[in-house]
Each structure stands twice: as structure tokens, then as C-alpha cells.
């Protein structure tokens, strides 16, 4: 009897489930709600405790910095600040805040909110990985490092409720564009401190739905981990009249095939990415949905210059020159990326690199022979280190094949788990390691400063006083006419010495439903949600 009863319960449950089939979760046809694939689940929604691109997508809808950028042209537009002036030496920025700028609880956004937020971000105890983004401000780095303890000595002053003065250590031509990054967003003191201390790394409860007060076009109404982050219009937003969407729903699909299936089922308007192997199918069958556009990001190999034979620049350059990047882009990554012969990607605020590492097998063989390894004789096998990803493996295997064929040099692709791989890279426990750099803002210096001596992002052991001097010199002038030639010289030096081998420039690839209007790609992958609308016609 018991068995029969449990069978009945089982059947009833299955029937209940089947009846439920007609109801559904999100639907991409439910009004002016944008359904966005958000990548992995955000670790946090505190702008100063995150580092990822996926968090950026969400935070940009919730918060607004002093400036915003045009979705298409990336021209600087007013954000929380309605205007600004810059001193002739490019060091002092005075922002006039929009008097209508308000938090989602209706209180005005003041200059003090920015001072408070940046103080919190720079405090050492909070341990923000992105604190260094603010180090261009006078004494900001010193404050994070504890050398300055009085925040009033940091170059940020609220002159009155609506006037903010920022003093920079050196001219930063891209300064106004940097404010789209969450590092620069303000937070409300009373909101943060209702849940804990200003610099307590555990004090992020204020970011939960129902707690968070933000100043962006939308406000948080639901954050169900691994399910959905739902935001709706912030009626107090200063430019609310120009916000066309009623809300945005972010779905944290960390699994790309699942995300793509959700798009096909009509439950997503825009995906975060797309598997390279799917590109051909979409090109053939639904080209109108597929978007492959430029973005600033370079995939490259680091070469550990502290180890023989990679301590010889000729060996490094020979290895870099014998990589057929076009073949990798076409055959391994299905045309989803473009070959990169320099470290800085093309189109970076008008900067064009003058030097390159071309694919030239003859020259590479010659360099290797000059280094004392004719036809690869005497070269020990090199390990190519990469973290788990099918693409990284396939690229490493292709390069292994190219080095063998072109230089008679043996290589061994070696996969490590993410944290182990990072540890190996930081402690220089590798020969060759795959790497990538996605710029935080539109300026080539954001790339080149990675290779300054002792820089935390260098991770190759490479050091050149000449290179350091050139990069330092670019910080003396805001004039691009002066800076760019210096940066070009620095990049030439970097590529001649080749502590890295550039492989490809990233491109954004994603699927976009035709009903979404105004969403155009830009190099930063920046989404300005004010620009989007939903068209019923599609």
C-alpha cells in the first residue's frame, strides 16, 4: 500500500510539473525590460570589492560616476557632474555636480559622497584590487600604503555640496573617460555605515536588494544568487526622462552553451559572449543576430626572462616571430579575433603602434642561430603554461607545432588550475605563460605601464631603465602630440626585447535580439543603459 501511495504521489508531482510548463520565467517579450546575459555570478555588488567585467555590466546600471560616455562614439558626456574645468597644466579638475542628481532614496548626490566613496576605496583595510586606478590622484597611493594617514592630504576636496576638486599627481589625458569604471562611482555614507565600518572588507550587506541605495538610472530590486539580478527605473535619477527601459534583468549564466540556448529560446536579448565554435553556424544561418566587433584587449604570451635560454632577447624575438597569428585566428578561433603584431591594440584613443613583431620564419631562424641555437640545436624544451580553457589548450598546441616546424624547438603545453597558474606566473615559475590584458580606459599607457620595472602586472622579470624613463616622461605632459611619440618609442623597445609575444586582439562576440534598439558595440564593451530601448515592431 505504501508503495502504491508513493507511486501516486510521484505521478501527481510529475503531472503538477507538467501543468506548470505553460507558465515560465523571464520572457523576452514582456515590455521594456532588457534581458541580459551577465556572465558569471557577481561576487559582489560593492563597486570597491569587485574586479570583473560581469560586475561592471550590472554596476553601470546602478551607479553613475562624474561622467558617462556615449554608447557609440565613447565621447565624454555629463554624468553626476554637469560640467567641469581643467587647469592648463592638466592637473586640477573642478567638477560642478548636477543639482538634480539624486540617490535612489531621493537625497541629493553631493561632492562629499564622492570624497567619502574614494576614501573608502583607497583605505588599505578594504583591500580593493582596483585601488590603484585612483593612484593618479595626489597622495592616493600613499594613503593606500599607509604612508599618509590623513585623508585631507589626498587630492580630493569637496569645495561645497556641488563642487568637487580633484588634483592629479601627473596629467592623465584619459581622466574624464575613467569615470565609467566602477572604481570611481560614489557610495552613500549613511547607506554603507548602516551596515558596518567604512573600511570593513566584510561590510557589503548594504549591497543586497532592499538595502542598496544607488545613484544610477536604475535601482536594485532583486538579487537572487545564480538566478537573476533585477533592476528597475530610478525615478529620482536626474535624467530619468531619457531612460527608455523600464528595467533590466541580468542572468548570470556562467555556462556559455546554456546562455546561447536561452537566447535561442527567446529568453535573453543579449548574450555576454558566444562560443567560438558557434560563430560559423550563426554566420550561415542568422547573421542578423551575430555581432563581432573590435574591443581593446590583447592576448599574448609572457616569456620569463629570468630563465635560460629566454634571458636572451634574440631567442625571445625568434619565438615571437615564428608564431603564425593569422593561422591561429582563422583556424583555431574561427575568425572571432584578429592577429596582433604589437602589444597595444589598434584604435586606442588615436594611438597607433609604430613597431611590431611580424611573422617571419627566416628572420626568426637567423635570430635563433645568432643566439647560439642554429636550427634549435641545444635549446631545451619550453613549457607553455595556461589555465583551464579549451581555447588556451588549442592555441598552445598550435604554437607548439609552429615552434617545432619553424624553429625545431620543442614545447610542452602545461595546464594548471586558475589559482595555481596565477601563482606560477607571479612567482616566475614558468617558461612561457598565456596572458591577456584588457584596458581599463582608453589610453595606451594603461598597456605599457604593465611592463614597468617591478610593476605588479609585469610578471616576466623584464626590466629596462630606458623603457621606464620613457613611460615616466609621458606622465609629464597632457599633450598627446608629446606623449604618443614617447609611448611609441617605449613600445618599440618592448617589442625589440620581446618579454612578450603578442598573439591576437580581442573582439567582442555576442548575440543580440533585433528588438533591442541603440545597443551598439564600442571598444570598451561599455553599456550605457540610457541609450537602449525595446522595439515592439520586432
Amino acid at each position, binding site marked *: 500500500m505504501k508503495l502504491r501511495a508513493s507511486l501516486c504521489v510521484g505521478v501527481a508531482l510529475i503531472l503538477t510539473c507538467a501543468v506548470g510548463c505553460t507558465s515560465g520565467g523571464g520572457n523576452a517579450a514582456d515590455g521594456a525590460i532588457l534581458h541580459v546575459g551577465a556572465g558569471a555570478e557577481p561576487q559582489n555588488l560593492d563597486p570597491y570589492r569587485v574586479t570583473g567585467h560581469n560586475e561592471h555590466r550590472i554596476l553601470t546600471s546602478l551607479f553613475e560616476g562624474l561622467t558617462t560616455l556615449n554608447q557609440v562614439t565613447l565621447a565624454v558626456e555629463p554624468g553626476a557632474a554637469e560640467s567641469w574645468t581643467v587647469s592648463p597644466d592638466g592637473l586640477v579638475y573642478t567638477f560642478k555636480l548636477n543639482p538634480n542628481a539624486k540617490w535612489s532614496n531621493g537625497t541629493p548626490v553631493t561632492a562629499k559622497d564622492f570624497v567619502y566613496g574614494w576614501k573608502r576605496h583607497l583605505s588599505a583595510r578594504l583591500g580593493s584590487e582596483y585601488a590603484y586606478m585612483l593612484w593618479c590622484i595626489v597622495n592616493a597611493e600613499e594613503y593606500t600604503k599607509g604612508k599618509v594617514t590623513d585623508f585631507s592630504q589626498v587630492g580630493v576636496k569637496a569645495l561645497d555640496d556641488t563642487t568637487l576638486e580633484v588634483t592629479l599627481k601627473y596629467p592623465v589625458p584619459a581622466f574624464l573617460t575613467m569615470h565609467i569604471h566602477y572604481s570611481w562611482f560614489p557610495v552613500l555614507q549613511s547607506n554603507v555605515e548602516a551596515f558596518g565600518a567604512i573600511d570593513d572588507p566584510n561590510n557589503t550587506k548594504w549591497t543586497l536588494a532592499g538595502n542598496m541605495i544607488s545613484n544610477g538610472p536604475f535601482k536594485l530590486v532583486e538579487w537572487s544568487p545564480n538566478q537573476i539580478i533585477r533592476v528597475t527605473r530610478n525615478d529620482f535619477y536626474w535624467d530619468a526622462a531619457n531612460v527608455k527601459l523600464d528595467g533590466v534583468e541580468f542572468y548570470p549564466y556562467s555556462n556559455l552553451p546554456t546562455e546561447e540556448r536561452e537566447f535561442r529560446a527567446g529568453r535573453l536579448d543579449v548574450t555576454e559572449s558566444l562560443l567560438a565554435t558557434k560563430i560559423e553556424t550563426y554566420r550561415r544561418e542568422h547573421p542578423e543576430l551575430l555581432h563581432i566587433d573590435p574591443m581593446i584587449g590583447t592576448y599574448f604570451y609572457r616569456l620569463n626572462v629570468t630563465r635560460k635560454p629566454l634571458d636572451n632577447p634574440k631567442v625571445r624575438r625568434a619565438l615571437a616571430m615564428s608564431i603564425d597569428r593569422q593561422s591561429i585566428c582563422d583556424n583555431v578561433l574561427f575568425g572571432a579575433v584578429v592577429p596582433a603584431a604589437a602589444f597595444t591594440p589598434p584604435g586606442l584613443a588615436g594611438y597607433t603602434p609604430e613597431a611590431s613583431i611580424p611573422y617571419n620564419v627566416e628572420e626568426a631562424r637567423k635570430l635563433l642561430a645568432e643566439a647560439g641555437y642554429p636550427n634549435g640545436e641545444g635549446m631545451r624544451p619550453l613549457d607553455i603554461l595556461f589555465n583551464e580553457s579549451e581555447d588556451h589548450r588549442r592555441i598552445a598546441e598550435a604554437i607548439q607545432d609552429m615552434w617545432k616546424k619553424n624553429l625545431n624547438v620543442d614545447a610542452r603545453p602545461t595546464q594548471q588550475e586558475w*589559482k595555481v597558474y596565477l601563482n606560477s606566473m607571479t612567482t616566475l615559475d614558468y617558461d612561457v605563460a598565456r596572458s591577456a590584458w584588457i584596458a581599463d580606459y582608453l589610453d595606451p599607457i594603461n598597456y605599457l605601464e604593465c611592463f614597468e620595472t617591478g610593476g605588479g602586472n609585469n610578471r616576466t622579470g623584464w626590466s629596462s631603465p630606458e623603457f621606464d624613463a620613457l613611460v615616466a616622461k609621458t606622465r609629464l605632459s597632457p599633450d598627446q602630440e608629446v606623449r604618443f611619440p614617447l609611448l611609441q618609442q617605449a613600445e618599440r623597445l618592448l617589442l625589440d626585447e620581446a618579454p612578450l609575444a603578442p598573439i591576437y586582439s580581442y573582439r567582442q562576440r555576442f548575440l543580440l535580439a533585433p528588438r533591442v534598439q541603440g545597443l551598439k558595440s564600442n571598444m570598451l564593451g561599455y553599456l550605457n543603459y540610457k541609450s537602449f530601448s525595446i522595439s515592439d515592431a520586432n
Partner: protein
Amino acid sequence: MIRFLVRRVLGLVPVFLIIVTVIFFLIRLAPGGPFEQGERFVAPEALEQLRAAYNLDAPLYRQYLDYLFDLVRGDLGPSMKQPSRTVAEWIALRAPVSMELGFYALLVACTLGLLAGVTAALRPNSLTDYVPMSFAMVGICVPIFVLGPLLMLIFSIWLGWLPVAGWGPPNTKILPALTLGAPYVAYIARLARGGMFEVLAQDFIRTARAKGLSEARVVLRHALRGGIQPVVSFLGPAAAGLLTGSFVVEKVFQIPGLGSQFVDAAFNRDYTMLLGAVLFYAVLILVFNLLVDVAQALLDPRVRYGK
């Protein structure tokens, strides 16, 4: 019986302590920590402060003792990488989802497994035996990371009957429950078939049939109770397995359970979250094993006296 129960529960304490100790030191052996490594460098000064905030600057034995002390007070600590909630809050939020999924999967496994197994046993070496048993073999052989996307493709993309992913309305639960339950359907079917086959050959069944009872009555009333004994013994470990083994299904179907949280914590070296999840799973498995032992002791007194 009470003495038996007390003895078994007290026996769990050292087991639990060993698990805590081994896991605590094992996860510290993995290279990298929660804060040391990221794509961007962190100022060493900030890193130092951060490590101090989470007691990671103390000697390892001190960290261990402090953790044990907190554990005794019922405090699993803050999550190091997802600090918007404490470890206990994360477990409270996400474990019920995994348990619900496990429950549905168990229901699917029992319902379909018993149906297939009993039907097969009634007509051995016929089509009604071969067909369900072949499906059972497929259930065992096809890994769930293949079965999940396959079911998604058929029922969500081609037929459009069910959602692709997510966890909410009842229709979101069908495909994950089927995927997770499939290998267990197969095991239960095979166990039920074997058990029923054995019982149906016994004298008391022949007697029942000789008395003129209907076949349905013979099977349901007399044979089933003995026939599903092997299935009952299997249910303890099966339930524990279903509740703790849903990582892949949670990932594929985007289910906000503890399994995916556990995997993310391991990759992020979120020590406190990882320890909390492991301990939660450990307690679950220990409790299930205890329940099986108790059930066996109730059925067979010899177990109680350790004979």
C-alpha cells in the same frame, strides 16, 4: 536500542573532527589564497590588511584552533570572496535548493526505477524485460553532462515545452530532476529486478498463486515487500549521493544550489565557504549513514548487539 543510538552518535564526533582537521589543512596546501592572486595586482600593504581582517596572518595552528572554537559556537565565519553574506547564510540560502533538487531526483529514481525493475522481473527474458533494462543501462552509461544538454535540446529548444535553465516554477525542475535521477533510475531498476526475481521464485509465492490470488495481489501484496529490500538498503547512500552530487546538474541548468557554490568556493580559495560546504555535506552523509544503521538495527536485532 537507546544505548546503540548513543554509541553511534558519539562515534560520529571523532569522525567529524577528523574531517574538519583534514579538510582545513588540505585546502591550505593548494597554491594561492583567496586574496593573493588575481588578474590585477593588489598593493602588498592592502593585501596584508586584508589577510589580517580574515585572521590569515596568524600561524596555521592558531587559525585552526580559532576555527574550531568558532565552530563549537556555531559560527562558520564570513565568506571571504562573497562577503555580502556569511557562510551560514549562504548555506541556508542554497542548501535547500540542492535538497529540493535531490528530493525530486530521488522521486524520479524510485518511481521510474521500481516500475522498470518490477515490470522486467514479471516477464523475464521478454521484451518487457529487455526494453526497460536497456534503458537502465543507457542511464548508467550516459554521463549527466551529456544527458542534461541532450534533454535541454529536445524538450526546450526543439519542442519548446520546458525552460532551458533556471530554478523557480515547477516546469524548471523537471529536466534537472530527470538528469540527476537518471543514473539512479538505472541502479534501482536493476536492484528491484534482481530482488523481485528472487522473491517470485520462492515457495510462499507459489502458495499464494495456488490459493487463487490475482497476479496483481501476489505481486503488490506478497512479493513487493521482500523484492524491494535491496532497493531500501540502497536508498540511504543514494539519497546522500543525490543531495551532495548535483554539482554538474546545477552548473548545466543554472540552479542556485550549494553544489555550484561549493565548486566556485574551491576555485576561489574561499576557505571559510569551502570548509562550511564540506562540513555541511559531511554532516549530511554521516546522518544518512546513521539513519541506515538505525533502520537496519530496527529490522535486525543482531546489529544492535554488534553480532
